[in-house]
């Protein structure tokens, strides 16, 4: 199988602004090309667009806007993990020899239709994500005797880390008391426990080893991929206090990369809500069951940015189609020692965890220098 590397990336600040989807797609792609003038756009033979936006034919539109006539151009949608699904698709095209270099651009507007999964009628009238998150939170707190204050530390840590990320939606820090006093959405979820839908875009360029080596000597390689979809409906989850799809995807990705979880230096996990971060850390094996919040507290107190250095979804904002790509860019920057104030020392191996619809589907990537 052909080795696949990340050779360039572009990203724009995440905002609450109203912008056309085509415009924000173009802006992150332009940022990629502006930062990497050595790239010959004629060498790009596929363009993939990751979004939940209802606009049609976005990959050919982006192709035309950046002056490329690719062999392959199409959109990919899988709610919140559209971004890493697009990266996996691009990886497959390159690994199989169907393409040599692929531009993947993810974008979302703050009014994205990806927030509500209309099909899932097993949720009854409770289709907004705060309801599955409340059930996860209540179940997790009950099973492991965890308090709201312990979970609030996730938001405190990730907002603090987002302050070092110039592209993050939030540039404010909060205390545990601030999180506890923020607007109560349900008995188990407060406003500051939530990632916020927003407008944002991120682009990444993948290439075969042969092509990558022509462009840069600092490629980051995708060495492990794991994916699992257990269902589409939230109520089919076998547990509401752990993530089954994440366990399976994480195991598969580490096996493919021939690493174990202790070797991972830096991590992006899908903290759509506070409770998701400890659940993901436990399901991936970074912590024993119920121990995720203790790990998060220790990381915060020691100013260790290992988990969600860019501020996670809670601090950075969550433009669904761009999130998985932004997470992958962060780990790439970390492995290239380009993460500035967010830099985790001596990071050699990184992990990206991106999931959708109450962890019914998860993607895990392992990246290496």
């Amino acid at each position: 199988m052909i080795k696949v590397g990340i050779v360039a990336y572009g990203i724009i600040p995440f905002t609450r602004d109203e912008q056309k989807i085509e415009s924000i797609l173009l802006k992150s792609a332009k940022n990629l090309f502006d930062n990497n003038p050595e790239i010959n756009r004629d060498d790009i033979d596929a363009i993939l667009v990751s979004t939940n936006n209802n606009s049609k034919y976005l990959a050919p539109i982006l192709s035309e806007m950046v002056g490329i006539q690719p062999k392959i151009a199409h959109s990919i949608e899988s709610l919140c993990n559209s971004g890493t699904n697009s990266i996996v698709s691009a990886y497959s095209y390159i690994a199989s020899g169907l393409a040599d270099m692929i531009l993947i651009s993810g974008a979302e507007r703050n009014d994205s239709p990806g927030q509500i999964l209309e099909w899932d009628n097993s949720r009854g009238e409770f289709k907004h994500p705060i309801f599955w998150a409340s059930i996860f939170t209540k179940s997790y707190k009950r099973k492991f005797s965890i308090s709201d204050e312990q979970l609030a530390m996730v938001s405190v840590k990730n907002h603090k880390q987002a302050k070092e990320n110039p592209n993050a939606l939030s540039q404010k820090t909060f205390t545990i008391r601030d999180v506890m006093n923020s607007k109560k959405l349900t008995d188990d979820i407060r406003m500051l426990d939530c990632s916020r839908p927003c407008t944002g875009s991120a682009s990444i360029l993948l290439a075969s080893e042969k092509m990558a080596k022509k462009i840069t000597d600092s490629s980051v390689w995708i060495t492990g991929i794991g994916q699992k979809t257990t269902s589409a409906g939230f109520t089919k989850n076998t547990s509401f206090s752990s993530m089954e799809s994440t366990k399976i995807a994480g195991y598969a990705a580490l096996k493919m990369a021939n690493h174990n979880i202790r070797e991972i230096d830096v991590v992006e996990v899908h903290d759509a809500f506070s409770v998701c971060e400890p659940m993901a850390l436990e399901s991936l094996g970074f912590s024993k069951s119920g121990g995720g919040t203790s790990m998060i507290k220790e990381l915060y107190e020691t100013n260790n940015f290992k988990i969600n250095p860019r501020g996670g979804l809670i601090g950075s904002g969550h433009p669904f189609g761009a999130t998985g790509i932004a997470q992958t860019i962060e780990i790439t920057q970390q492995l290239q020692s380009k993460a500035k104030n967010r830099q985790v020392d001596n990071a050699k191996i990184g992990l990206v965890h991106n999931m959708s619809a109450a962890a019914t589907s998860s993607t895990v990537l392992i990246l290496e220098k």
Partner: protein
Amino acid sequence: MSFESELLRGKFCIPECTVCKKIVWPPSEFCNHCLGQVSLKKGNFTGKIIEFSKQNEEYFCIVEFENTIRLMAKMLQIPKIGQIVKISKCGISNESYFFCVS
């Protein structure tokens, strides 16, 4: 007669495969195990509270029926984990199913 037409009449039925007898949930025209035709089982079913939370004065619960079907339902009284409940009201509103249990 479909699950939704019955639900519109305020009746909760259990979709079951006519071939392998597996319960099919969420409701579908065909069984997701053997792809057989699905029919509806009528009855006054009891469910069990699996988990719950609260928004304003209303509780929302995960309720399990027949050890298989799980749905989210509204409840006005304080729920207890493991409590046995029945559907007191159900239907379709604004294109979404709704269920109340007591």
